């Protein structure tokens, strides 16, 4: 029983970060329809910004977090302006190839600047964990969970309760009509991509200090982010959050009670099942087509 409780606690802290990875990608992949292969690199980028600000500049951990989010926003905006804007209207394959190119170029850039050896970031949290009866959890992971929950809430409110969010949804539903209604669609494209990117950077900035930071860290994260988005349904924020927790639960229980060798396979077994039985995602609502 105590083992099961511990697995549930692990699932909560892991699921929070998976959800954060998922909502960033669901904005770009789900709402904008861009197969964003740079999502993982932006995650890595956020983690390296933490490393620069905390370890190299010696600044406070809590200052570094917003810096990383802002840097992710700026890099995302730059990618949209230089790569995606000239390609708007081209087919999905072209965009996909350009994004793969951007992914490889940026990952190689990271390797070139910082080398392949993993870096770690020191945090202000105590090493001794919080112990509650049979379960224990590190303070850093709790902080990451709280920060992720806050970012998810802010994103949710932004999309559903602000005029920017309404303009975003309108633009990607019907680009021309939105434009005729006075929406600045260029601005919407850039800001949506930038917001999604800043969420990826935020996830990297929060998880980099939990794990270690190295140039390929984003690859597995990106694969999981795509899985979460497909699980939750494209463009569905609530779905992405639920998808994050379901993936975490599958991994924890799969590793705990089935076989740890297949831990990363568990999530993908679920994806295969979802694609067979509910191809629009577990939480997809009926959508108007055409």
């Amino acid at each position, binding site marked *: 029983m*105590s*083992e099961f409780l*511990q*697995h549930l606690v*692990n699932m909560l802290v*892991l699921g929070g970060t998976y959800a954060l990875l998922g909502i960033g990608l669901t904005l770009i992949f789900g709402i904008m329809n861009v197969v964003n292969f740079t999502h993982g690199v932006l995650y890595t980028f956020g983690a390296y910004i933490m490393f620069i600000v905390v370890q190299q500049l010696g600044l406070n951990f809590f200052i570094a977090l917003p810096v990383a989010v802002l840097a992710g926003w700026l890099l995302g905006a730059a990618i949209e302006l230089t790569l995606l804007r000239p390609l708007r209207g081209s087919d999905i394959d072209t965009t996909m190839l350009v994004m793969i190119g951007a992914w490889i170029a940026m990952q190689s850039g990271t*390797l070139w600047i910082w*080398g*392949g*050896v*993993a870096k*770690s970031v020191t945090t202000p949290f105590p*090493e*001794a*964990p919080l*112990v509650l009866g049979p379960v*224990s*959890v*590190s303070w850093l*992971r709790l902080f990451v969970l709280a920060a992720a929950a806050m970012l998810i809430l802010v994103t949710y409110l932004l999309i559903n309760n602000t005029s920017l969010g309404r303009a975003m949804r309108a633009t990607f539903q019907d680009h021309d009509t939105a434009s005729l209604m006075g929406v600045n669609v260029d601005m919407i494209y850039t800001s949506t991509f930038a917001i999604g990117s800043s969420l990826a950077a935020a996830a990297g900035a929060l998880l980099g200090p939990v*794990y*270690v930071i*190295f*140039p*390929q*860290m984003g690859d*597995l994260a990106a694969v999981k982010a795509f899985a979460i988005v497909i699980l939750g349904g494209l463009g569905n924020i609530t779905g992405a959050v639920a998808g994050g927790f379901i993936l975490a639960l599958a*991994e*924890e229980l*799969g*590793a*705990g009670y089935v076989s*740890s*060798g297949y*831990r*990363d396979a568990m999530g993908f077994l679920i994806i295969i099942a979802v694609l067979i039985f509910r191809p629009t995602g577990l939480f997809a609502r009926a959508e108007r087509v055409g």
Partner: protein
Amino acid sequence: MTRALGLVGTIALATALFGATAGAQTIKIGVNEPLTGAFAASGTYVVNGAKIAADEINAKGGILGKKIELVIEDNKSNPTEAAAVAEKLITSDKVPVLMGAWGSSLTLAVMPKLMEYETPMVVETSSSGKITTTGNPFIFRISPPSAVEAAAFKGIVDKLALKKVDFLVINNDWGRGTAEDFSKMMKDKGITIGLVETMDQGAQDMSAQLSKIKSSDSETVIVTTAVDQLTLIFKQAAALGLKKRIITTGGSQNPDQIIAQAGAAANGTMHLTTFLPWFPDKTPNPEATDYFITEWKKRGFEFAGCTESFRGYDGIRTAAAAIEKAGKAEPAAIKAALWDINIKGLNGDIVFRKSGPEGKESGQSQPNVYLIEINDGKVGMKTL
């Protein structure tokens, strides 16, 4: 445009000149190591150790009147890449001998290429038993196979009063081979084997495996993986309140890096290593050890890397000694000469003995294995 053409011309000329001189005056040794990916830290240390050996040999005039040149390639911690890198080193760079490829799965992937091109390789780190028992006569290993590690550990099993042991190992030939060899030794000693948990080489979150181990009734966990993952395991075990005795194997722990990165979580852990840079006078060749450590520090490398990098140093010296003995830089002659060398390695004399099926034996030297313990952030020795 003219300027661009001029630049291209200059580069072409420079490449041609450099290529020509390098080809004529140096003896190449191929180095196939993981410089990126999961084992980047370890591979980089090994390469830095290899460079110290090359510089030392070249400062003394090289071998056969020529300087040695290391052709270093990154196998990206990926077996497919490791095989491709070996092929490139042999066919394109024309190296007559290689050193590599750090991980057991990486080395096993390279081995068919060695057979295909009949080129010998000095294996500096890999510990899977399969490497020297499957009948590849181009393999010369200076690191201990996991069965040798297990045998060395046998002596201390009673002193530690082990009763029930769990394993947490990297999910590849190295980790699974270690779990197998250690389980066998321990069962003979009457110790119960509990869980055998695995983790992917790139995995960063081992909380699920550790939670399972935490609730088992064993008192000891044997952990096998490289330093980056070990650091994460110690931190995550501490966060879960796992209070069992942890013993690591494999010789790629870099204990000082663990102390620096895992802090208090590292206290009380024990590690089977193959080098004692903390106690140079207790190593088999104290003078050589002193030289190596001084040179390592002089180059500004982190002391933590010594336990890994010495293998690169010994590996290159082994290859160079064989080339010298062979009298020419040709694969077949070097392969024959490797059987006759006897050099003072930092972890014991390097002399190859036959291992594996008759007629196509691999070479295996017999290095020492030590048990160390971390206490109060310091490394101490345990007598085996």
